[in-house]
Structures are given as C-alpha cells and as structure tokens.
C-alpha cells in the first residue's frame, strides 16, 4: 500500500515536472513569436527584464504616452549634462547644420540619406510630452518633428525587420528599439522644441523621441539608422550603448 502510494506520488510529481517544463518551453516559444523577449533576457537579471518587457508590451500595444496642455510646458526646459561634442559635430554646427544628414539602411528596399531640410519638408507633427530621466527628474516640452514611421515608409521596411538600431554622431552613443516602438505614432525624429529649433543642449539638430520610455532611449544627434533582424554584432551584444557604458537595461519603459 505504501509503495503504491509513493509510486503514485512519484509518477504524479514526474508528470507535474514534465508538464511544468513543457509549459515553460511553450510559453517561451509563444513569447518569442509575439516579440515578448528582450535582447538582454540572459544573465542574472534576465527573468526580471523579460517579465517587465513582456507584460508592458502586452499592456501598451495600442497605448499613447500622455500628452499635456501647453500651460504645463516646463520653462525653461532642462538641458542635461553632456560629454563634450566632437569635431565632426562642431564643423556641422559651424555650417548651421545645413549639411546634417541621417542615413537609413539595413533591411530596407531603398536605402536613403535625408537632410534636415528634407525631414522638415515631410508632414510635421508635435507632441507635448514628458521627458523622464531614470535618475528621477523630468520636464515637459513640445517636441516637433517627423514621425519615424513616415521615414520608414519612405525607405520601405522588409518584413524580416525586428529592430532599429540608431546612432548618434558620438560614436560611443547608440541604442535600439523593437518595431512596435519604431512604428509607434509618437516615435519622432525631432528637430524642434517649444516652437523653435531643437537646442543643442536638448539634442539638436536631430533627436529621436520615444515618450513611452525613459530619457536615455531618446538618443541625441542622430545621424544613422539601421533596420535589422538581429542585434547580434552590434556592440558587445547588449543591443545598446547604455548596457555597455553603465549597464542600463535595454528596455526603459519603467
């Protein structure tokens, strides 16, 4: 009787363990299929990052960052500290950024390079949104620019595309986003702020803006975008310069 019981127990435990493992495996496959696994899902903090990214992706599929009335614009907007700008930037600045270009390549039908004037000739959009730093401070500004989706449509995105890697003129400064954020209507290439040109201190002449993520994903001085299927081979594989510099999470929705 006792042996029977313990055998049954053992069998049940074995079945439960098998079911648990296959459920986890199935969950992982489904999560991968629906883009719920962040590129930094490995390592000791992988489980937390994956839970955060997956749950927020499911929750924010169609959500828009909060927009504010004009009266809530912070005056003056805060220009965060920056490392000194390089010679390439300074010479473009001397020419009034007339020669500033942003190139788009990778998994696109028509690789292209855009001048600021070209970007400004596209339909201009504005959003009064908050910029939130992971340190804890924040400000609200009116951001003026072209939705990234417009540029992506202009170059033609191939169906295999999964991420966009974007680079600053500072070679050590780059980051990446998934296609959900790339196509999001509030993801802008921003060239203006509060009715004026975007100040250099706030990322002018061209800054990517992702109001549903913390400020460090909104990289300043954008010169290059690459559409890619995999983030392997970019940097040390952490999918952005932030994890390599200060080991910051790739996904910054919280």
């Amino acid at each position, binding site marked *: 009787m006792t042996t029977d019981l313990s055998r049954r127990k053992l069998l049940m435990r074995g079945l439960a363990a098998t079911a648990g493992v296959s459920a986890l495996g199935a969950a992982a496959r489904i999560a991968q299929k629906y883009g719920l696994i962040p590129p930094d899902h490995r390592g000791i*903090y992988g489980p*937390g990052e994956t839970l955060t990214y997956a749950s927020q992706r499911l929750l924010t599929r169609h959500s828009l960052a909060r927009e504010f009335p004009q009266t809530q614009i912070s005056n003056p907007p805060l220009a965060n500290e920056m490392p000194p700008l390089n010679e390439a930037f300074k010479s473009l600045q001397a020419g009034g950024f007339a020669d500033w270009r942003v190139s788009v390549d990778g998994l696109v039908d028509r690789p292209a390079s855009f001048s600021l004037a070209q970007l400004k000739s596209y339909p201009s959009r504005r959003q009064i949104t908050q910029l*939130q730093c992971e340190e804890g401070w924040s400000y609200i500004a009116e951001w003026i620019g072209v939705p990234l989706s417009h540029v992506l449509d202009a170059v033609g995105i191939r169906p295999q595309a999964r991420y966009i890697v974007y680079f600053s003129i500072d070679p050590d400064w780059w980051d990446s986003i998934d296609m959900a954020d790339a196509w999001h209507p509030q993801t802008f290439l921003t060239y203006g702020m509060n009715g004026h040109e975007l100040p250099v201190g706030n990322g002018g002449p061209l800054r990517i803006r992702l109001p549903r993520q913390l400020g460090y994903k909104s990289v300043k001085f954008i010169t290059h975008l690459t559409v890619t299927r995999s983030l392997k081979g970019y940097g040390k594989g952490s999918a952005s310069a932030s994890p390599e510099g200060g080991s910051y999470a790739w996904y910054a929705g919280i």
Partner: protein
Amino acid sequence: MPLGTSIPSSAAPVSATTVASRYSALVRVTHWITTLCFLALLVSGIEILISHPRFYWGETGNVLTEPLFKLPIPSSRNLVPTGYGYVLPDQNGWSRYLHFQAAWMAVLTGLLYTISILFTGHLRKNLLPSQDHLSWRVLSTTIANHLRFKPPSEAEAWSYNVLQRLTYLLVIFVMFPLVIWTGLAMSPAFVSAVPASVTVLGGQQSARTIHFFVSVFLVLFLLVHVVMVCVAGFKSRMRAMITGRADTPMERT
C-alpha cells in the same frame, strides 16, 4: 491553528513546554523571500535615489524647479547641486536591474501569500482582529504592555495580538499595494496604458514622492518588527519562523 502533539522537551529551561508548528511552511517561505526582496529593493532604491535626492510635487521636477524638499546627502550626479564638494559613484545600472527583478519576485510572492491566506484561514484566524480584540480594554492593555516592553503572554506566542494584527493588515493590504502602485505610476509605459494611475496621485513627481514616504514607513516597520522580535525572544522567534516550531512558554530563564 491546530497544535501538534505535545512533546515534553528536556532542552527547554522552563517547565510545561510544548513544541508544535507555529507557522505553516508557506508563511515561512514567503516571509523569507519577502525579506530578501525587501532588502534588495531597499539597497537598490537608495542607490537610485541618490542620483537625484530632491523631491517634488506635481507632474514635473528638475534642478531648475523648486523642490518640495531635498535630502541633505551627496548625489551620484554632477547635475545636482548638493553643496558637497564631491560626487558619489553612479550605481544606477545594476540597481535598476535589481530593483525591478526584486519587485517582480516580491509581487509574485505577495500574490501567492495573499491568495493562500484566504484559503488556509490564516487571514481569518490570525490577522483579522476578533470582536474581543477591538474593545478599548484589550487595545489599551496591549498598547500599555508594548510601552512597558513587556514580553508577550503564553497565548500571544501562538497567534498575534491586536496591534500586530492591525499593523500587519496595514502593511499587507495598504502599504505594499501603495508602494507597487506608486512605483508603476513612475513608469512612462505603464501610465500610457493606465493614465489614471498617475493623474489621481497628482502627477509623476508626486508618485515618486509618495513612493519615497511609503518606503520610509516600510523601513520603520521593519525596524520595529525586528525590535519586537528581540523583545519577544530572538532565538525562539527566529526558530519559529525558520523551522516552524515554537515552544511555550517563552524561553526565559
């Protein structure tokens, strides 16, 4: 709580000692996981906090705006004018990873605990105060005993007194939910889906300030909790929470 068989123990210094299960395995395991998570959240939270030890009320706040108050501590960022001549090392990278990982673990553990105490009767029997508890006489006696640091009676060794019950209920059902809520209200992605979670608090900076105060309350709770464990008998209480076994009366020689 059903008591196990009374086994006379020769090791205990006081007569009439019973050894039985004081805490269920689930309560003990969730207690220690929560302890670990809380310490991880506290350390990482302090690291994140020192990158901007200023607090604001409303939607926005930065070094150009008037703070509600500042903590008189140095910062890990040059940007913040603290008056100290130095900048602390920046630890936000791992701190943010650890903070959210520990938060997930604490939330999942808390859910398991909360759901299970509804079914095991722990909530009804040990946490919700009974009619008798809520009389002024019992309340005032319990408060007076605490003020005199009087060790708990035999009966109290088997369940919680009214002050414990009310405090644990406050921590479990008010403070933990509030700290999770205010944490989520700082997330730009979460509030894009649930805007009311931050607007009812008065804004994102208000959420951050409330998050800080609730954390301070939880730290005070932890300190009082540990002091009370020491007053009640550190060894026996730790043994009860680790092995589940408790002996009565309290070990006092």
